[in-house]
């Protein structure tokens, strides 16, 4: 269990933290979505990196190769990417509506607007 054998995980963890930090700390709605996207992408590495076998090739079966990397995580992550972009699209759509109704995409400004005018203009 050496540190070197796990370094791919460390990268994942680092990216995940950065993404999550952006989501929690930032008040801008678009920025939060970017952070969310980074958070999700970091998961891809968690799945895919362990599937790689050194000396293996992409899992397209042919006569010349004997060793392939693990295809199952690839399939899962394909699905996860799609889910990620779908979420992003929806989140942006909501953000655009927020911008149109509130005139701002900063979380604290929106909350302040709601306090001042609870019934909504």
């Amino acid at each position, binding site marked *: 269990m050496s540190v070197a054998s796990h370094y791919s995980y460390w990268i994942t963890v*680092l990216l995940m933290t950065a993404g999550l930090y952006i989501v929690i700390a930032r008040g801008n709605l678009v920025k939060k979505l970017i952070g969310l996207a980074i958070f999700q992408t970091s998961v*891809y590495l968690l799945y895919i990196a362990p599937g790689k076998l050194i000396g293996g090739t992409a899992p397209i079966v042919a006569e010349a190769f004997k060793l392939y990397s693990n295809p199952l995580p690839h399939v899962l992550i394909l699905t996860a990417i799609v*889910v990620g972009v779908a979420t992003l699209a929806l989140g942006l759509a909501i953000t655009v509506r927020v911008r149109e109704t509130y005139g701002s995409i900063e979380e604290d400004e929106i909350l302040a607007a709601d306090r001042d005018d609870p019934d909504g203009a």
Partner: protein
Amino acid sequence: MMAVAAIAVALQRNLFSAVVLAGIYSFLMATVLVALDAVDVAMTEASVGAGISTVLLLGALHLCGGEEAKPLARPWPPLAVALTIVAALVYGTLGLPAFSDPQAAPHTHVVPRYLEQGPKETGVPNVVTAVLASYRGYDTLGEVLVVFTAGIGVIALLRRARRRKEGKP
């Protein structure tokens, strides 16, 4: 480099550059994925992460305006939350099989059948496609439905009403 890009995104206050950096990040991710033999995934990440996402984000920025208002008021509590999660993950990953260990469970259970029988059973040499469309075809159905849901969701939220309704105060 990816890490640098991600941190740069976190620090960047101009949303436009943040979007561009996120795009760069996606391309780097795609490169890493190729190195890890995940060619299908890399292709998707390049087209989706660096392509579609960037276009969407830019479109949204065009509608919303591009400067983030304020620097952080209190950066420490969120950092603490993020660090807790790091701790949990580091703790968890320490027990995982080492990188490229052919004896690890994911390589010995379930997957061998895909690799050995897949081309014969489905007639498709790209095992990723075989698993995607056949063995786990139902997941892919779900994936298409997620896209579908997002599509009609965006329509429902953003379509211009023919007449302005009083239902939207």
